């Protein structure tokens, strides 16, 4: 049994951007964990964090919650496709 998944190009473009910003955040966080007094890295982290919050809000308004703590239109859209392993990043 396989599920048929229809992937929206624009959604893939947006989530890819979100993934990129989220990766920068992880890198700055891991670095700051061992260098908590590096002010420049902290500034980069904070700026990226606010950028991430904005992108996440835009994405969720359009495609539903990324986590089960988010708000959803009716009906509950957290369960909607695509789950991460079904996302198709070819030609995005």
């Amino acid at each position, binding site marked *: 049994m396989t599920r048929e998944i229809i992937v929206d190009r624009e959604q893939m473009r947006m989530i890819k951007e979100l*993934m990129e910003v989220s990766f920068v955040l992880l*890198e700055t966080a891991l670095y700051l*964990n*061992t*260098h908590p007094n590096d002010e420049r890295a902290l500034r980069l982290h904070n700026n990226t964090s606010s950028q991430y919050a904005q992108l996440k809000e835009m994405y969720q308004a359009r495609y539903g919650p*990324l*986590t089960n*703590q988010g708000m959803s239109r009716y009906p509950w859209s957290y369960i909607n496709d695509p789950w991460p*392993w079904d996302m198709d*990043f070819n030609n995005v």
Partner: protein
Amino acid sequence: MWIYEKKLQYPVRVDTTNPRLAAMIIEQFGGADGELSAGIRYLTQRWSMPNNRAIATLNDIGTEELAHWEIIGTLVYKLTKDATIDQVKGTPFEAHYVNHGKGLYTHDASGNPWIAAYYNVKGDPIADLHEDMAAEEKARATYEWLINISDDPGVTDTLRFLREREIVHFQRFGEALRIVQEQLETKKYY
């Protein structure tokens, strides 16, 4: 606690169905130096770390490893989901298929199931951080061997990303080790 975010850490691309390659990549799903071992190792070692920087490092790298485990699972899934029985037959994936079908399972490329003995917690931060640094190098080496046998450009791209992450983790664990060593030195002399 953890909250799941419905996204991968890296945009995984797979170009063609390839059960043979999937059967090799599963090494990093349930093998000794795979992503599951890494995640469980770091997250379990957190409790006996002596300072906040080391705790945070293990916490966040351990969490990232679970995201890598998900990436590896996604590679295996994408490489096999459209495979016909004829494409499975005669490949090393056939042995996986007769037990698990196209489901994923945590075993290594030779079929050995994942076991907790793949990692340890000594409760000694110097010993544990050395284990972590060695684990990162072993994972890096595994990715190199996998890159050598990969004939799918999309898969190779993801394997290269994961290989790079092991190098970054090695660096961060080295810093955490130095911080712990300095802490122990200070205790000795003052």
